[in-house]
């Protein structure tokens, strides 16, 4: 610790130093701060250990980590872009009629007639039944025109012709 008789050519106002050193004259003068026994003997070893433990392996170097992160980002972006492009491709793909027929011919056992009718548009259905190309907006009225909605809409003559076509003789159906 500094004594009051210390020579310091830089001290401009030596009374500054005397204030504290005069106060400390009342003290025992022993060192106040202490360290554990042998602390400084092991200090060098502790620092050396810390330095060696701090040495990072090559993949922990900041430059390598930044490079790997960048590459990972690029890979993810490329994967996302590719995925989006391939999804669009499927959506936009236009199957030819032949391809569709070939597909449904191969899988016809798995698809019932009702399944097909369910997914077909009314216009397609009419077209398939031989009505030619049909304007989908007029489909409903056409259906109403062509298909009787009730048994009372069928005339007696039509019933008569139908029964004859089915092999019944005149009057046979009176007993049905």
């Amino acid at each position, binding site marked *: 610790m500094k004594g009051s008789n210390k020579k*310091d050519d830089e001290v401009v106002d030596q009374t500054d130093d005397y204030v504290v050193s005069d106060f400390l004259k009342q003290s025992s003068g022993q060192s106040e701060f202490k360290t554990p026994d042998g602390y400084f003997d092991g200090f*060098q070893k502790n620092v050396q250990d810390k330095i060696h433990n701090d040495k990072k392996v090559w993949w922990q170097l900041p430059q390598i980590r930044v490079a790997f992160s960048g590459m990972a980002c690029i890979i993810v972006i490329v994967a996302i872009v590719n995925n989006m492009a391939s999804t669009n491709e499927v959506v936009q793909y236009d199957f030819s009629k032949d391809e569709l027929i070939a597909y449904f011919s191969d899988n016809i056992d798995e698809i019932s007639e009702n399944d097909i009718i369910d997914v077909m548009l009314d216009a397609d259905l009419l077209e398939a039944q031989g009505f030619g190309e049909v304007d989908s907006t007029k489909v409903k009225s056409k259906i109403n025109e062509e298909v009787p909605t009730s048994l009372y809409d069928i005339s007696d003559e039509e019933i008569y012709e139908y029964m004859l076509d089915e092999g019944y003789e005149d009057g046979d159906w009176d007993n049905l």
Partner: protein
Amino acid sequence: MNWTDEDIIDKIKDNKTVDYGFNLLLEKYQEKVYWVIRRMVIDHESSDDIAQETFVKVWKNLDKFKGESKLYTWIYRIATNEALTHLRKKKRRFFLSIGDIENELMSTLEADIYYSGDVIQLKLQKAILTLPEKQRLVFNMKYFEELKFREIAEVLEVTVGSLKAQYHHAVKKIEKYLKED
């Protein structure tokens, strides 16, 4: 053998003797660095961590030391920066104000098993702890470490004039505290 800073730098610059040179540096400065830090952060455990971290930084930055400043002022600069950073982190971590950090350091001092100052010394330490960080640093380096103003100015990168003013203010505050209490 008493190695000069120039000898140590020469050893460090030579790849064959760099480890030896660093050990010489550690041997020469470990205690000085420790005490500068200890008087700032008070408790031994933190001082030990900061002192070790200081020398790890010295080792990592040896190639950046161009010899423009003296070796010891460069090392002291790293040590004081580490100590001040530690105190600032502590303030932030525990949301402490300047007054709170003084009280916290005083409590640490009183509870520290590695502090055995008598009543007079404890009173002086309490007076020093009332100073702002920079003034405390200047006072400790000037009074306890006996560094010259020119050397402290080099460490803290300030002018000698401002240092003298800070030291004067620090002593006046301490004097006032000792007379009042």
